[in-house]
């Protein structure tokens, strides 16, 4: 019979602790204990309980419970400070430093009502925090009312793997020669740092997050050999320059007005998410433009994995292939940025699945989709969702009188070679005739087509003619497994 404690692989740290005799004479053993007495738990488990009180202050107050509890709180390894003024924080950190040389997590949050700090206080708080050699350090301080764009030197953080800073009004600088040898994760929010100068000093950095960078920062330059993930959000910056040979995941979300320069060199990238407002496509529409406002590119396999966790089991797509999802809407404000040109600035992709969410406002979308299929000729699966307009927005298309087809009237007669496409799904059809034309064109141009599913928008009852036309098209290609759901 096997017993725990043989040659079983287990957490040795825990096992050793568990077997060591209880520390100190004050621990209550089970036989001496009174019912419901929390003191039966060993120190290391009580530390876990105290850490979950949410603030070191509450933990320290338990020293008044009994002599067993007197210094228990100083054993907390994951320290959070939420409820203390800066002077008290110094006292608390100094007391901790007397008992221990390091903590695994130190998360300091100076509360809002304690605002009114000067920049020198930020400096000394950081130094005191660094003195505890935290494995993870997070510092959040509300806006400094008297100081703006002042430099604060980063302290030595040799053991720190994760650093998170949210200190508005401060520019963090790293003194000459200072290296951050353990840093793997860096997050800067609402404050500034010369990232271009910082990254070469972080040889192990894997994850970088920059959000709400102040306006004073004009360029975000992310050049790193080790970086695997970069997330930049709400960027007003006009220049974003990423060069990261090991980068796997890129997330960028720009402010609405963003019309600047983007450069990405990341040959290994597997996932990209771009939220933007500036990729126009001049296709088909006369006065309006199609604009891409969200774009994501995922490795096909990770997308499949995600679907699987959601309970869906779709067929596997070839590895290396990618899923491109675009959200496209109609806008009367053209931009200088052209979709195809902008895509050339991103790492090249082999799109095997094209997912389009189109807020068409009733416009003829066929030419725009054909334009995309002309760029991404490897697409095997085309997935279109025609979004319903919001209640207060009226269709901007006036059917036959609309200009939406004027520049490209002949799109129905186009001959395209869509040899890769095997599967098409369109949801949200409105029962309009240009939709049938688009379907017919797909059947004609995609000889390898195997499956077509179309679905009408909820509550739409199409004309009999429309329905018959769709059925006729389906019957013309009996080899294709086609269905329509009303």
């Amino acid at each position, binding site marked *: *019979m*096997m*017993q*725990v404690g043989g*040659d*079983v*692989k*287990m*957490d040795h740290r*825990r096992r050793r602790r*568990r077997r060591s005799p209880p520390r100190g004479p004050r621990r209550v053993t089970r036989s001496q204990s*009174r*019912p*419901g*007495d*929390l*003191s039966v*738990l*060993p120190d*290391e*488990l009580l530390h*876990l*309980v105290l*850490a*979950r*009180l*949410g603030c070191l*202050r*509450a933990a*320290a*107050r*338990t*020293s*008044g*419970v*009994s*002599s067993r*509890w*007197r210094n228990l709180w100083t054993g907390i390894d*994951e320290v*959070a400070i939420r409820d*203390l*003024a800066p*002077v*008290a924080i110094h*006292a608390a950190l100094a007391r901790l430093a007397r008992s221990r040389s390091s903590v695994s997590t130190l*998360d300091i*949050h100076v509360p809002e009502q304690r605002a009114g700090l000067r920049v020198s206080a930020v400096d000394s708080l950081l130094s005191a925090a660094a003195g505890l050699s935290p494995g993870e350090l*997070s510092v*959040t301080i509300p806006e400094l009312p008297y100081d703006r764009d002042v430099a604060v030197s980063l302290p030595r953080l040799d053991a720190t793997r*994760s650093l*998170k800073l949210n200190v508005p009004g401060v520019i963090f600088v790293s003194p000459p020669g200072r290296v951050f040898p353990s840093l793997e*994760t860096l*997050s800067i929010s609402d404050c500034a740092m010369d990232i271009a100068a910082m990254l070469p000093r972080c040889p192990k950095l894997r*994850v970088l*997050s920059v959000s709400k960078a102040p306006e004073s920062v004009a360029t975000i330059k992310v050049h790193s050999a080790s970086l695997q*993930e970069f*997330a930049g959000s709400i960027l007003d910056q006009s220049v974003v320059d990423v060069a990261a040979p090991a980068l796997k*995941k890129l997330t960028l979300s720009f402010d609405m007005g963003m019309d600047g320069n983007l450069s990405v060199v990341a040959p290994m990238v597997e996932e990209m998410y771009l939220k933007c407002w500036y990729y126009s496509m001049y296709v088909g529409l006369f006065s309006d433009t199609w604009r891409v406002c969200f774009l994501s590119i995922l490795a096909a396999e990770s997308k499949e994995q995600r679907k699987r*966790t959601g309970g869906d089991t779709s067929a596997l797509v070839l590895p290396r292939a990618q899923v491109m999802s675009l959200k496209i809407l109609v806008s009367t404000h053209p931009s200088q940025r052209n979709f195809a040109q902008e895509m050339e600035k991103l790492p090249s992709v082999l799109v095997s699945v094209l997912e389009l969410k189109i807020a068409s406002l009733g416009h003829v979308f066929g030419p725009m989709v054909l334009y995309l299929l002309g760029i991404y000729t490897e697409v095997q699966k085309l997935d279109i969702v025609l979004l319903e307009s919001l209640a207060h927005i009226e269709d901007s298309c006036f059917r036959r009188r609309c200009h939406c087809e004027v520049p490209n009237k002949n799109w129905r007669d186009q001959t395209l070679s869509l040899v890769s496409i095997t599967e098409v799904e369109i949801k949200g059809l409105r029962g309009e005739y240009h939709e049938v034309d688009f379907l017919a064109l797909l059947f004609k141009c995609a000889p390898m087509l195997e499956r077509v599913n179309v679905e009408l928008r909820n509550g739409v009852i199409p004309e009999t003619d429309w329905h018959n036309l769709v059925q006729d098209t389906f019957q013309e290609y009996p080899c294709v497994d086609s269905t329509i759901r009303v």
Partner: protein
Amino acid sequence: MEVDKGKGEAEETRKVAEADRDTVTLKSSDGKLFEVSKEAAARLSTVLAGMIAGGSIDDNGTDLKQIGSEALENVVDYCNKHANSIPSAALISSSISFNTAPFKEPEEWERKFVDRLSHDALFDLVEAANFLGMERLLDVTCHKISEMMKGKSPDQIREVFNIKNDYTKEELEEIRQELAWAFYDD
């Protein structure tokens, strides 16, 4: 020979059947047996995962001499409930770990699960979770105890948890002075 061969085959079949079993049997310190889903046990307990991977699971009941039957029943109950619950988005870990709060909030059913326990059962479960390397259960149980302490003075904590006060008045005052930053507002 024929018979031996037949016996060997039966043995083989039995072994295969054992390897394929989707539950494991655990034995408490007082000799009671409990069945738990192998998948859930391996996912939730690093120690059980190590034993399953290492083939050191006993079909007649793997001895867990440090865990009493009440605590083990709760452990098994938790594993089974966990196997049946749909994880919320918060539990599906993201690759970027910028958690401000190092601890994840318990799910609704986990709250209910620990709420019904007596203090002693809860403390035993904390120790069992720690012993079995069940990080999530340890998190949930410790969270529950901390909830019972939150916002309470040392006097109130002593009362809730039946802890004996061995301080003199002078000692208590000394502590308050020493940790003035914690006990008094500035």
